[in-house]
C-alpha cells in the first residue's frame, strides 16, 4: 500500500521541488536574459543583499499570521454554534462549504464590488451620512487584502475546528464545571487544549494559503501590497530570472517548514 503513494509523492511533489532547488543554483545572465546551468550561489546573494525581499517576506508572514489569528477568532464561535447549538448540523456545515463551490477569483472580485468607490459599503456609508463622499481608501489597500484573505480562507479554519469541537465529550465540560470552573475557564483549560489539533490543522491551511497567494494582492491590493508570491511570479513571468524565482520559493518553503516544525512541537499533528 505504501508503494503507490510513495510514487505519487515522488512524481508530483518531490521531483518538482528538487528541480526548483537545483534551478535556484543556476546562473542568470541579466544582459542577455538567459540562464545557464553553471552552479552558483549568486541568486541567494542577491536575495540577501536586497532588503526588498526580506521586507516583503516579513510583511507576508505578518499578514499570514494576522489572517490566521483572525480566522481562529471568527471560526471559534461559528464552529461552536454549529457543533453545540443547532440541531441540523449538516445544514450549518453546508452553509460554510457552499462558498467553496464558487471560484476563488469570484469571491475576491466580490470584495471589489463591496469595497469599491461605487461599492455596497461606500453607498451605505454615504446614504447613512457617515461619509459625505465615497471613499477610495477602502479598495486597493492592505486592509482590503486582509479582509479578503480572512474571508476566503475562513472555511478552512471552520471545518477542522468544528470536527475537533464535536469530539469534545460533553461530560468533560460538565466535569470542569463541577470542579468549580466558570465558563471562560472551562473554555481555556478544557476546550482549547482539546481542540488544539483542529486549530493547528486550520492554521496550517490559512497560513500557507496566504503565504503562497499572488492573485488577491493584484486584485485588491494597493501600490505597496506586493507579497512574496508576487515577487516569485515576476521572476518567472516578467524578468525571466527563474533561478531567483526558485531561490525565493525556497525561502518561502523554509518559512513554511519552520511553521510546520513549530506546529508539530505541540504534538497536534500526531493526534490528527
Amino acid at each position, binding site marked *: 500500500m505504501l508503494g503507490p503513494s510513495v510514487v505519487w509523492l515522488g512524481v508530483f511533489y518531490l521531483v518538482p521541488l528538487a528541480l526548483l532547488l537545483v534551478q535556484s543554483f543556476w546562473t542568470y545572465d541579466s544582459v542577455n536574459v538567459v540562464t545557464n546551468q553553471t552552479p552558483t550561489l549568486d541568486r541567494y546573494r542577491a536575495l540577501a543583499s536586497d532588503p526588498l525581499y526580506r521586507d516583503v517576506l516579513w510583511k507576508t508572514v505578518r499578514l499570514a499570521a494576522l489572517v490566521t489569528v483572525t480566522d481562529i477568532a471568527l471560526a471559534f464561535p461559528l464552529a461552536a454554534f454549529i457543533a453545540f447549538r443547532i440541531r441540523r448540523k449538516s445544514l450549518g456545515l453546508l452553509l460554510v462549504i457552499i462558498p467553496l463551490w464558487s471560484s476563488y477569483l469570484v469571491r475576491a472580485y466580490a470584495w471589489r464590488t463591496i469595497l469599491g468607490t461605487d461599492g455596497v459599503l461606500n453607498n451605505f456609508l454615504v446614504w447613512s451620512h457617515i461619509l459625505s463622499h465615497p471613499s477610495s481608501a477602502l479598495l486597493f489597500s492592505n486592509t482590503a487584502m486582509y479582509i479578503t484573505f480572512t474571508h476566503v480562507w475562513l472555511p478552512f479554519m471552520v471545518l477542522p475546528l468544528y470536527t475537533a469541537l464535536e469530539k469534545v465529550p460533553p461530560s468533560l465540560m*460538565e466535569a470542569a464545571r*463541577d470542579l468549580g470552573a466558570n465558563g471562560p475557564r472551562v473554555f481555556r483549560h478544557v476546550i482549547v487544549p482539546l481542540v488544539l489539533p483542529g486549530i493547528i490543522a486550520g492554521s496550517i491551511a490559512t497560513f500557507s494559503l496566504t503565504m503562497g497567494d499572488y492573485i488577491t494582492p493584484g486584485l485588491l491590493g494597493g501600490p505597496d501590497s506586493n507579497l512574496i508570491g508576487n515577487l516569485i511570479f515576476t521572476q518567472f513571468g516578467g524578468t525571466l530570472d527563474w533561478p531567483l524565482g526558485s531561490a525565493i520559493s525556497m525561502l518561502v518553503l523554509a518559512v513554511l517548514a519552520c511553521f510546520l516544525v513549530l506546529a508539530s512541537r505541540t504534538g497536534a499533528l500526531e493526534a490528527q
Partner: protein
Amino acid sequence: MSVSTYMNAEAPSVELRGVSKRFGSVSAVDDVSLTVRKGEFLTLLGPSGCGKTTSLRIVAGFERPSGGTIHIDGQAVTALPPNKRNVNTVFQNYALFPHMNLAENVGFGLRMKRLGRADIERRVDEAMALVRLEGLGKRKPTQLSGGQQQRVALARALVNRPAVLLLDEPLGALDLKLRRAMQFELRHLNQSVGITFIYVTHDQEEALTMSDRIAVMSGGRILQIGTAQEIYEAPATRFVADFIGESNFLEGTISDWENGVATVDVAGAGAIRARCVDRIATGIPVSVALRPERIIIEPSEQPAAGVGAGENVVRGRLLEAVYAGSTLQYAVSLGDAAQLIVRSPNLGQAAGVGNDVSLRWSIADCSVLVA
C-alpha cells in the same frame, strides 16, 4: 465550635422539596422530596429511565428543575450553577481530562479555587494516597486500567472536600470482582471522610450492601425510602417487592383484619395470614408478597407437627426443581391458580418432582400489598 457551624451541622446535608423536571412533555422527575442526613450513604435505586440520574444531575446543578427547591447544608442552591455548589460528582464514564496527567486531573478543582502550588501538591498527594495511587501523578489517564481511572475520578472529587459527593453509576463499567472490591472501598471512604454520598445505581445488590438508606425510584417518583432491611423486609409496593430481590405474589381478597395481621383468601391456597399495618376493609383485592427463601418445603406425608400458631401452611405439587449449587430452587403449584417459587439451602437432598409437598412460612415473613 461557633454557633453558625453548629446550626449548619443540624441542617440536613441535602434537601429536595417537591422537585420536578420535565423534558418537553416527558416528566423525568415528578415531585420528589428527599432529606439526606450528614455523612449518610444514600442510594437512588431504580431501573433505567426512573429519574435517578436526572435527580442527581439536579443536585449537581447540571439540570435546572422545572419546580421545587434544593438546599445543601441549609443553603438554597436551586438557582446556583454547578461551579458555585459545594458538591462534586464522580461520572459514570469517569470524565477524566485526557490532556492532563493524573496530578493535574486531581488538582483541577483546587486550581480553580486558586490555591497555592504547595497546597495543591500536598492535597493532591493526600488524595492520591487515599485511593492508593501514590506515585502515579505523572501518568496520563489513558495509561490506567478502568479501576484505576475510577479511583482517580474519586480522588479528583474528594480532594475538594465537598459537602456532598455525587456518584453516577460509578462502578457500571467494571468487572464483577473489581466492582465488589470498589463497593467495599466506597463504603469505607464514606465512613472515614465523613462526606455525604448520594449514589445512583440500577444494581440492587450494590444498593443493599453499601447504603445507609435506599430510595427506590420508578416513573420519576420515590416509591419507598428506608434502610436495606426495611426495603427488603417490608416493601411498600409491589414494584419495590419485585425490583429488590425476588418475590412471590399471591392474589386474593381481604377476609379479616386484627392487630396488624390480615387474613387473605387466596384461590388454591386457602386463608393466608400476613402482616398488614393498616386496617383494610373486607373484600378489597390485595397481593401477599413472600420471599422465596423464607418458605420451608417438606414432603407432605410428614405430619405438620411443630407448625406454630404464627405460621401459614399450604399444600402443593412440586413442578420443577433447579439445582443452583448452594441453593435449590423449586416451583410449586397451588392448584391451577397460583404458583410459588421456593429457594432452600442445598442440604444434600432434593425433593422429587411430581410429589405433593407441604410449604410453611412465618406470618411475619409475608406482607399485604394493595394492588
